[in-house]
């Protein structure tokens, strides 16, 4: 293990979001949502918006830094950076911001993502443009076009190898909906989900029902990252970055059906690095936000982060275990991608930080260590651990 790591050198000191909407519901365009989230995060941190001098994002964020810096009136832009990949880039964007402040490139970096589905790109619509070349040519002509379908292929094989039933997937989905009922920001606030409604919902692609798949939403989320030193003097309790990792394992080629470890969410290598850097074990984690684009991917992800053995998942992945306030490992405590808002997972960082600050709407009692995992199955992926 490297001795020179980011551990405890940086912290999340502010969280902010726009209002969250159903797809098409936002009265302002994506750029406006991004600005609202960043302004709210700065206000939460107790800094001036013009103190921000760095911007970091992921997943081909369309609102580019010079327009944002101009729009927000930033006096100087000293760092701007984007992590490769889609939802797998969330924690990586935070990690890049942490590295930037630790190295002195910038003082306050806003990590953000905005999404108004349809204004730039609709993730759920897959890739069906003309002339499918390269890897896409091996799947798209057979109707395998969307992330839901491709990830379902992985999950089906995993379920076969480890005797997983629909119950485990349902528990992940129901946990997100349960937590959303306490969170007024959540798009699904006031819209509880029962197991019966889950079972009766239509198939999108077996083994995913409608409620196993995340929503398409309009919204933006942001956090402010600065050094641990500056963090101590600010308004909020800092959420210290204890560890962060990004990458993929041997030949985990995105969109390939021939990755050596197919029934996987691609975290076996990343989780090992993450725990080593943090110097903790899975049992030390109090609460987890795990990128829930599709429930089945979360099931695999939990096992790959060592919370249980894959063959124990049917006992571990129960609604009881995954829900606040009494569960062993409360999961997606603001409602996640499934029921709070799909901001490509950025909003999970806000929630991970709130949990160690102590102001979540489903606050885990005495939470000290909070994990955020981005992007299951897609690679490169990333993850991070925060502590109070």
């Amino acid at each position, binding site marked *: 293990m490297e001795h020179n790591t980011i551990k405890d050198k940086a912290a999340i000191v502010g969280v902010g979001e726009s209002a969250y909407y159903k797809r098409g519901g936002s009265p302002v365009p994506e750029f406006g949502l991004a600005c609202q989230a960043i302004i709210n995060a700065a206000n939460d941190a107790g800094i001036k918006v013009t103190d921000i001098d760095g911007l970091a994002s992921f997943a081909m964020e369309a609102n580019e830094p010079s327009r944002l810096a101009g729009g927000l009136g930033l006096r100087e832009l000293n760092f701007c950076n984007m992590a490769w990949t889609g939802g797998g880039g969330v924690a990586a964007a935070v990690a890049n911001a942490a590295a930037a402040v630790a190295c002195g490139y910038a003082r306050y970096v806003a990590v953000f993502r905005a999404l108004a589905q349809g204004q730039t790109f609709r993730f759920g619509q897959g890739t069906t443009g003309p002339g*499918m070349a390269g890897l896409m040519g091996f799947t798209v002509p*057979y*109707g395998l076009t969307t992330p839901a379908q491709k990830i379902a292929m992985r999950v089906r094989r995993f379920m076969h190898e480890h005797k997983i039933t629909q119950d485990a997937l349902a528990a992940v989905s129901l946990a997100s909906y349960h937590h959303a009922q306490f969170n007024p920001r959540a798009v699904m606030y006031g819209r509880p989900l029962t197991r019966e409604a889950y079972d009766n919902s239509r198939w999108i692609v077996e083994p995913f029902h409608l409620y196993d798949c995340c929503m398409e939403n309009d919204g933006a989320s942001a956090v402010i990252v600065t050094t641990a030193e500056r963090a101590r003097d600010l308004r909020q309790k800092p959420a210290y970055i204890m560890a962060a990792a990004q990458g993929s394992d041997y030949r985990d080629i995105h969109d390939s059906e021939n990755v050596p470890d197919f029934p996987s969410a691609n975290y076996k290598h990343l989780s090992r690095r993450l725990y080593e850097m943090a110097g903790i074990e899975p049992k030390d984690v109090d609460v987890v936000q795990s990128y829930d684009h599709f429930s089945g991917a979360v099931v695999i992800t939990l096992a790959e982060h060592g919370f249980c053995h894959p063959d124990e998942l049917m006992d571990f992945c129960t609604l009881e275990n995954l829900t606040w306030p009494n569960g062993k490992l409360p999961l997606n405590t603001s409602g996640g991608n499934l029921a709070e808002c799909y901001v490509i997972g950025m909003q999970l960082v806000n929630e991970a930080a709130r949990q160690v600050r102590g102001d979540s709407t489903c606050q885990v009692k005495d939470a000290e260590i909070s994990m955020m995992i981005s992007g299951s199955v897609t690679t490169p992926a990333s993850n991070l651990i925060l502590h109070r």
Partner: protein
Amino acid sequence: MATETSGSQYYLPEALPPPHPAPDGRDLEFWEALKRHQIVVQRCNSCGNLQMEPEWLCHKCLSFDRGWQQVEGKGRIYSWVRIWHPVPAALKPACPFVVVLVELPQANNLRIAGNLLGDPQQPIEIGAPVEAVFEDHREKGYTLLQWRLAR
């Protein structure tokens, strides 16, 4: 083993973009072979390593000296999905339909995706033996590799 299907028997309507060799030509031979009703896999001329998704070099020994090896159209279902929600929407009349991931024992269990012909609501068993069916789209100049349960 290789049954040719006629235009009226396409498994899916022609609502999807056809396969298209990568612009840099790395997988051209794979698609040309399908038109001849052959399945070929990239084989390294230096170390013999097989890889399904063509690339300019061998990931084992980093040689750029690439060849091709023909494999029989016999495999096993490795995983599967049944698709009910059409994307793009033009696939709606074809839903539900089945995509299988087939592993090819003759090629180190490398995998390839295709549709499983037959009743789309049939029960599907991982491990079931399947055989290749070449689906020619003559007017558009390409052939798809489909699968059916082995007899």
